[in-house]
């Protein structure tokens, strides 16, 4: 009996011990995660008080002033009004965590200090989920206030009525400072941009030299571009296998496939994805066929892109491949990835933006498509239609976009305010000049209410053409007809 008890006790201790270890590990992980995601506590305010101090000495009274510093931490017991901020700043991603810590949280504190009865509540969504979520929540009657939004969804937002028209707020605001036509046209009057996202081709200058190419003379047109890519595709160790591919490109399961790869080529060949007059998809016309053929040839005829990257998402196929030194050039390199280049020491003084920016090992050139054949967008901010506090939401947006604050947004890409370009002398800098030219060549995605469906359809059809090697013209036509049958008009 006592033996049994002993065993039971031992077992009990063992289980309790194991439980305690698991609980401690879970608590440590939980604490770590919460520390990572938790907004920092309010900065203690320092108040300098001047007090009169009297000192009585025998026979005399001395009155003197003394300055003392008091550190106050705001302690509030009154329930505060909540203003929601729907954002995509994933604390697990370097430049997004920086954005949270250096831009969003300080701006929230500034807002809360200015309007002490208000408090910002954070709602995190994945970047490509945030717009659909705002729409679905609108249908479900769930209110939000400020939201980060993507202009590609403007058509759908308008159709659903999920965003507030900001005309009355924009009128009295410094809108002109943000007037980048590619973005502004795509989002006005429902959103305001907080940056400028555009893309160039990034290339390794050392690999250009190794391949006998002049790193200061990037290709001027698509034919020359393909020739460069061929020369840059090399078996560096002589084992019969390609180690460095000329180009990193994407045909993958996200919107980037249409936005950064197919659409620019289609526009280059004179086509359109969608006709706003008839509201029909037009991607299967002759220019679409040429664009798909060009993409197909990159993989299978010119053999300048690693076919193993087919089907990988944008980050894996472009960012990871280029940073790993497995490609000499990468098409569709966004300015939101400049921090990664800077961390590697391949460029310098680009984040935060500076007129002294310099290309060290990597440089950029404007994608050699025709003028206005490049996608440019931005992350924008808008106010949810169900917001009960639109005026306060706009106040918060103004703080986020103020001249002092907006430059701290590490995911902004290029500075959204034109005045910053002048003040920081960015246009005069040769590296920034390339990015400025790319942005000026930009245009938005078509404002169809079925943009998500269109992007998915185009990826599906490109997968059939490039991966399954289906006939280009017929496959494109079938996909276009199918899309039009469901969503045209």
């Amino acid at each position, binding site marked *: 009996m006592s033996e049994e008890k002993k065993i039971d006790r031992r077992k009990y201790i063992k289980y309790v011990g194991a439980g305690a270890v698991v609980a401690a590990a879970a608590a440590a992980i939980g604490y770590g995660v919460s520390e990572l995601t938790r907004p920092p506590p309010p900065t203690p305010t320092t108040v300098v008080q001047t007090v009169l101090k009297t000192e009585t000495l025998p026979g005399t009274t001395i009155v003197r002033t003394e300055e003392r510093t008091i550190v106050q931490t705001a302690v509030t017991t009154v329930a505060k009004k909540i203003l929601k901020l729907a954002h995509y700043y994933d604390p697990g991603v370097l430049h997004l965590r920086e954005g949270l810590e250096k831009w969003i949280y300080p701006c929230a504190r500034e807002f809360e200090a200015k309007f002490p009865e208000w408090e910002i509540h954070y709602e995190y969504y994945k970047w490509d*989920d945030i717009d*659909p*979520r705002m*729409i*679905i929540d*609108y*249908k479900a*009657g769930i209110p939000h206030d400020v939201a980060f939004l993507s202009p590609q969804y403007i058509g*759908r937002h308008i*159709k*659903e*009525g999920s965003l507030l028209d900001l005309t009355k707020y924009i009128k009295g605001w410094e809108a002109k400072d943000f007037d980048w036509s590619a973005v502004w046209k795509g989002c006005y009057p429902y959103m305001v941009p907080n940056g400028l996202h555009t893309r160039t081709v990034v290339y390794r200058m050392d690999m250009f030299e190794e391949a006998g190419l002049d790193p200061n003379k990037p290709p001027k047109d698509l034919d020359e571009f393909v020739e460069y890519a061929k020369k840059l595709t090399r078996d560096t160790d002589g084992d019969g*296998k390609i180690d460095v591919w000329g180009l990193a490109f994407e045909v*993958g*399961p*996200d919107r980037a496939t249409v936005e950064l790869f197919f659409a620019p080529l289609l526009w280059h060949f004179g086509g359109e994805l969608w006709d706003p007059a008839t509201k029909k998809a037009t991607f299967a016309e002759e220019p679409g066929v040429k664009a798909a053929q060009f993409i197909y040839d990159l993989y299978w005829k010119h053999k300048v892109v*690693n*076919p*193993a*990257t*087919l*089907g*990988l*998402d944008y980050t*894996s196929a472009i960012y*990871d*491949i280029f940073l*790993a030194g*497995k490609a000499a050039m990468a098409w569709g390199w966004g300015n939101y990835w400049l921090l990664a280049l800077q961390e590697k020491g391949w460029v310098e003084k680009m984040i935060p933006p500076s007129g002294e920016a310099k290309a060290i090992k990597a440089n950029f050139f404007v994608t050699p498509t025709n003028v206005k054949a490049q996608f440019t967008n931005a992350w924008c901010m808008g106010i949810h239609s169900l917001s009960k506090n639109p005026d306060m939401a706009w106040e918060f947006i103004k703080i986020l976009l103020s001249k002092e604050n907006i430059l701290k947004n590490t995911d902004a890409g290029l500075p959204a305010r034109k005045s910053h370009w002048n003040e920081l002398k960015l246009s005069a800098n040769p590296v920034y000049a390339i990015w400025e030219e790319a942005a000026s060549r930009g245009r938005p995605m078509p404002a169809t209410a*079925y943009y*998500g*469906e269109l992007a*998915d359809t185009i*990826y*599906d*059809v490109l*997968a*059939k053409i490039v*991966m*399954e090697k289906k006939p280009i013209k017929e496959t494109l036509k079938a996909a276009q007809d*199918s899309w039009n049958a*469901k969503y045209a008009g």
Partner: protein
Amino acid sequence: MKQDKTPYLFLFPSVIFVFIILLSPGIYGLWQSFYESYKAEYKFVGIKNYEALIKDERFFTNIRLSLTYLLVIPPSIALGYLIAILLTSNLKGIRFFKTIVILPFASASIATAYMFRSIVNPVFGPLTIFNDITGLSINPFSDANLAMIVVILHSIWRSVPFYALFLAAAIESIPSQIFEQSKIDGAGAWSRFKNITLPLTLPHMLIATLMVMTWTLGDMEASYSLFFGGPGRGTEVVAIRLAREAFFYGNIGLGSAIAVFLIIPCMIFLVIYLRLLRRIE
């Protein structure tokens, strides 16, 4: 004799609670499948959403892929049974093995899907080593059939522990006297398995299978996390299509109609499951 109705009165709040929590979302979903909504207004469209689905070739591909996904079951049963027999044996170190075997089932499916995704990454994953050694160029990211195989393998990897634990419990519930008696009667291991273990664990196996079937048909997170329904739409099972329509595109009506289609086989499985459960009890 008059039956006392007081217990029903006490049960009434629970019934109401169950109705609100469990049934009302289903009924609401069914209602939504007859509507289209824009600008937060619902417009009655009758069976338009169902009609659209029936005419949609893509939806039939989704169904075909969902049915293919059910291929998870036969190998999972076989492997699960094998492991269950091992778990109920008196082999050394079996307790450690019991702990290990539960891990795939206990881990979050999204996490394990991402793990599989990194394994089969054709540029950075271990698959590259295999490709280098064999000279093959296997890439599930660009081959829909291979992608579906990976989705199924991932699901087998997760389902086997469930089968193993479920069946191990069933085997252990068989009275040991039956085995002892059969040993005395001269029955060998195979005979004992064929005539005792298998028939007595068959209902449990069916229950486990019905549960796995329901999960598999409704699985979106693992299959989506692996290949996002791709390459192209090569692994777009019905559950992924549902999520796309309802949550990515905002077509709630169409999404609800797909949900109704998806729930029908699940309901059938549920009825069979309940009947089997009653029979076991």
